[in-house]
């Protein structure tokens, strides 16, 4: 039993942290003033977009652990590029369908794809869907992937985002969200590769959960680090506000909550490729339920520590809160996941 990162994983963490750190948002105005295409290129060049492509044996180049390491760094930096949407979720779908060449293009950074989620953002859209769908994390993507039912089982389909989609006002300022209100003409769906097995779908969901959890763990940890740094330099009443026990305990409680979420997330990330799909999924639900249970509180605590300035639009604090809120929702909110856990736990009664 050893739950620590290997040396290689530790190196990956440093590389990802460096890119995310230099690319990370310092304040909301960076969203429009910086060159995010360059960030995407450096992710591609470092091979970070290729983690879920397959090697000669058909195994993913990087396991769920590697994905989580990079996703956490992206969350920590609030990096507004579609790392989860394109490099993880879409790439994994393409590889599961055997469309390795398409996946390779995403990994090179020359093309981007996103995913289509159902109306409550709780999972992949599955056609024939009768109404609203969202393209999530689709910045720069020309198309998004979803599922369609077929006699051979569910298949991956691609949908062009060029028609029928309008920008939605996402709470999360760092991920592009599109909306399609009406039913999508089946003629616009292009089937990709081979049908997926039930196990494929379970593993994909486990990966999605672990990746989103790692993202929000990064969001929480870096938000808290900023609040703590502020508490060490902000003076009121002639002393550093971080010397007030009230501030210390608020930070300590948020720290415990975030670290607990991180512990559950590490396990879920490892489980993606190491455990059987049902156990991996239970680990994912558990991690996500924990993350969703604490992310709003932790980022609200951060805004509170920042005081008045932390309430302003120009400040970075609410960008953390916004990404945390959306991360908490996608692929199932706390309520939804607790009910799934209950279905597993409480059947024997």
């Amino acid at each position, binding site marked *: 039993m050893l739950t620590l990162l290997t040396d290689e994983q530790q190196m990956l963490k440093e590389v990802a942290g460096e890119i995310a750190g230099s690319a990370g948002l310092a304040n909301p105005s960076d969203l429009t003033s910086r060159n995010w295409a360059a960030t995407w290129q450096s992710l591609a060049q470092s091979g970070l977009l290729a983690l879920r492509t397959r090697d000669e044996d058909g195994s993913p180049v990087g396991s769920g652990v590697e994905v989580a390491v990079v996703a956490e760094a992206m969350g920590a930096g609030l990096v507004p590029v579609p790392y989860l949407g394109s490099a993880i979720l879409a790439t994994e779908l393409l590889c599961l369908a055997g469309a390795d060449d398409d996946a390779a293009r995403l990994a090179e950074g020359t093309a981007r794809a996103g995913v289509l989620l159902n*109306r*409550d*953002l709780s999972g992949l859209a599955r056609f024939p869907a009768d109404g609203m769908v*969202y393209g999530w994390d689709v910045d720069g993507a020309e198309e998004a992937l979803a599922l369609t039912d077929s006699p051979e089982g569910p298949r991956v389909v691609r949908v062009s985002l060029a028609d029928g989609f309008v920008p*939605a*006002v*996402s*709470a*999360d300022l760092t991920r592009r*969200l599109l*909306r399609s209100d009406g039913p999508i003409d089946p003629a616009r769906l292009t089937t990709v590769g081979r049908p997926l097995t039930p196990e494929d779908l379970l593993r994909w969901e486990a990966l999605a959960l672990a990746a989103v959890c790692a993202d929000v763990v990064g969001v929480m940890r870096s938000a808290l680090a900023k609040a703590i740094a502020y508490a060490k330099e902000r*003076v*009121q*009443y*002639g002393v550093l506000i971080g010397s*007030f026990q*009230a*501030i210390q305990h608020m930070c300590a409680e948020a720290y415990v909550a975030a670290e607990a979420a991180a512990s559950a997330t590490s396990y879920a990330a490892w489980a993606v490729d190491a455990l059987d799909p049902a156990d991996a999924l239970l680990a994912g639900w558990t991690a996500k339920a924990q993350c969703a249970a604490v992310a*709003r509180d932790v980022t*609200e605590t951060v*805004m*509170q520590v920042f*005081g*008045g*300035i*932390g*309430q*302003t*639009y*120009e*400040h970075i*604090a*609410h960008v953390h*809160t916004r990404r945390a*809120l*959306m991360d908490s*929702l996608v692929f199932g*909110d706390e*309520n939804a996941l607790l009910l799934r856990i209950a279905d597993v736990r409480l059947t024997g009664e």
Partner: protein
Amino acid sequence: MDYRDTPEEAGFRADLRQWLADHIPAGWDKIEDEQEAVALRKGWHRTLYQAGYVGLSWPVEYGGRGLSPVYDAILNEESGNLNAPPLPSVGYIGRAIFTYASEEQKQRFLPPLLSGDTQWCQGFSEPEAGSDLASLRTSARLDGDHYVVNGQKMWTSGGQYADWCLLLARTDPDVPKHKGISAFLVSVKEPGVTVRPIVIASGEAETAEVFWDDVRIPVHQRLGAPGEGWRIAMTTVSYERGPADIGFIAAYRRTLRKVEHLAAERGLLEQPEWRKKLARAYVQGEVLRLNCMEQLSSRVSGRPPGPEGSVAKLLWADAEQSLQHLAMDILGADELTGSAEGWLSSYFTSRPVSVYGGSAQIQKNIIARMLDLPR
């Protein structure tokens, strides 16, 4: 003990209700243009004034009606219930003026304050002096018969729409920090004053910062004696959100009704869990209302404002923020994808309730003092 109106109060309330029904401008809350909205609020101030509804609890000698603060509370409550435009917030500025001003100042400033001909803001907080107000750095240097003001004020609510400002500035840097502050009555239209809106996380411009560059204020516009600024500030602050300012309770109830409708639309009313959450929000609102009524009674019976206001402030912040959490939990993806207009903005607007006007931590410190816990 009687929670009901006295006959006089009931009569006042009935007249007011009728008057409001007759006078509330139709569609006022649909106005989107900011200038139009400002004009509406100013106009409403004048309309209220002409009907005698401004300064209900001010002394008669200063243009008020000398009534108990219960009448202010009734005005707040009914305005909230009938969704009238926001009431003008003249009480705390007025209190500062009629407590500390010279006779000449009173005659000059009080009538237009009451009537709405001049709009006021409060220039207290600064970037480096939020909770710790006494650390303020804006300076007012005496130069002949003027003070010259330099500095930056922040969280100046209504700064964008104000004509005048009750300004705190440091007139003596060489004495302990609470003793070197003076208060001024100053026009924000003077040269050297720059007002910049502050946009909060919701995306709305809720407040403003005000920059002061060599602004000259005649000595006779100083309020009170030199160095009396801290005392004036404390009086003002303690009346800033008095127990009669209970408009937020009616607003809370209106929001709760909306949240109940959201839950109904989503078919959640069948589920005991959501029924309980909605009932809990009702209980929180009731508890807040009843605690505020007790405070008001205490004030009416002659006790000066005290730290029990901190209890209500904490209850309010908790109720307001919990209600926005509940709305978010009900709306789910709709709130976060822009499909439920206004709710995400309301959520972010609820966050500073535990920061502005004394953070939750400061309120708890005040209560600890009241409980006589050691420093």
